[in-house]
């Protein structure tokens, strides 16, 4: 529009830089507070660089609460649910895109209609169901009900519709079995969509809160967000330790984000529209 040296563009650039720095202030406040002594948190003027760095704020909570276990639980549950989501979504997406059988469209539309059902509206029956299955405080209870994604099925079906039929037919003529075709031909072709779904699903599960809050009530079965919330309610005034565990909980996600950033943003944008 205007040339790159115009005062307007410089003002715009400076404005955006200031805005972006402001966005980071809460995170810097978190980091700075995480090293302070408890009596230093509210001293004025604000000490952005603490007078001393108390590493105990990081080590002490790890001894008092099973943060490592919570971290493991989150990683394990999110990985397993993601694997299930990718598997069930690609199988169902393939079925809905490339097979014809009575009731196919009805099943597809019923699954798509569940996108309208908020989890918040079914917490009571879901809790009763998981309790009656004997799945409270188990990995099974945390993983299996999170193993299906209507959005994932929709996404995979849309991608598989554009897959050439000739490829599948040719394999059938060569005598390949249906599971073999799915595993060796259909999945590899749709790999980009699968990895977008995997990233989205992992993020979603990693940050999932309400469902694990219902299912995991014992300390050792909590996922990281639930554990963090329980730590918060027990130690709500020990701000340095609270900030320290928040910093620790941020780090893995931020590392993954910085490695995958572009793919990450793409898949969030792609999936967010429908999620």
């Amino acid at each position: 529009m205007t040339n790159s040296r115009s005062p307007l563009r410089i003002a715009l650039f400076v404005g955006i830089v200031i805005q972006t720095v402001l966005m980071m202030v809460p995170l810097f406040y978190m980091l700075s507070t995480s090293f302070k002594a408890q009596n230093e948190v509210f001293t004025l003027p604000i000490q952005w660089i603490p007078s001393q760095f108390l590493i105990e704020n990081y080590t002490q909570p790890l001894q008092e609460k099973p943060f490592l276990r919570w971290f493991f639980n989150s990683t394990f549950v999110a990985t397993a649910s993601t694997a299930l989501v990718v598997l069930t979504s690609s199988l169902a997406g393939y079925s809905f895109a490339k097979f014809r059988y009575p009731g196919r469209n009805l099943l597809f539309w019923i699954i798509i209609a569940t996108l309208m059902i908020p989890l918040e509206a079914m917490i009571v029956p879901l809790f009763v169901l998981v309790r009656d299955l004997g799945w409270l405080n188990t990995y099974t209870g945390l993983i299996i009900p999170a193993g299906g994604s209507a959005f994932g099925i929709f996404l995979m079906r849309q991608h598989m519709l554009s897959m050439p039929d000739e490829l599948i037919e040719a394999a059938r003529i060569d005598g390949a079995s249906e599971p073999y075709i799915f595993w060796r031909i259909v999945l590899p072709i749709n790999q980009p969509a699968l990895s977008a779904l995997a990233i989205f699903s992992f993020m979603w599960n990693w940050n999932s809160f309400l469902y694990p809050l219902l299912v995991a009530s014992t300390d050792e079965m909590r996922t990281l967000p639930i554990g963090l919330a329980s730590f918060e309610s027990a130690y709500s005034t020990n701000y340095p330790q609270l900030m320290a565990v928040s910093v620790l909980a941020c780090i893995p996600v931020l590392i993954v984000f910085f490695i995958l950033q572009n793919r990450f943003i793409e898949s969030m944008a792609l999936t967010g529209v429908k999620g």
Partner: protein
Amino acid sequence: MQGLSTTTKHPTPAERGLRAGWWTYRRRQQLWGFLFALPAVILFAVFAIYPILQTFYLSFFDFNLVDPPQFVGLRNFETILTTSAFRDSIAFTFRYAFGTYIPTLVLALALALALNTKLPGRSVLRMVNFIPVVISWVIVAVVWKLIFHQNGLMNVFLSSLGLYTPDWLLSRDWAPYAIIIPSIWKEIGFYMVIFLAGLQNIPTVYYEAGKIDGTSAWQAFRYITLPLLRPTIVLAIVISIINGLKIFIPPFVMTQGGPAGSTRVMALIIYQTAFANGRMGRASAMAVMLFLIILLFTLIQNRLYGTGRDVEA
């Protein structure tokens, strides 16, 4: 259709004598198709369809998890709609959704427009603005709870400007903003990315044509960008409002719905009614109301955006 037409082009396994006949082959294909869909169908039947039907069913019962449910007709609905707690909750939920997402979308659009120009370091700026999106909501709530502490960062900042410093989390009037402001902070980056994607889909020829006609930057925005971005904006509004109506974590962590219920969103009052007060039937009636509200917005979205036609294509 595809399956049928290709089987006429190529010899089917049946024709090659691998199996008895074409009908058997077709049956087998149908069976495979159904088998592939089966795991997802079972999961959705058990963990989505059954629970939502059960929500409707339980909303007509008195149920405390231990004793068998007692049928009470419409009494749960009568109770929740005549007591102020739930009505206040609906009102606050809407106030939260619109109070958060109108500013979020305006700011996100402004940011997207700015970062869609050739600024130096724009990919870094985009990435940094996206960071709050990837940080888990619990962490965001924990950090902002400290920021809104009586002596926290927000009040330090306000007092340095000589402004009034409320005790955010303990004041009925200010607590809603202590929930809304972190939400705006967390969500801007996400909608920025959605708008950037929309902006990049606008062909540059329009702007070039505009330039030849001598349009100003404002006219280009008003008569080219805005109309062409309209579908994205409409979609973003509806999706964000739906997400806003389902919000749970920030009030759960920061205020537990208080003070005096001033931040008790619908998801939270459902959770508390069910698991703190043990009134499962009443909570289910509230859940039915939440479901109907969300359904209404989803139908509006389908009407405006026509997702149905997209799926058919």
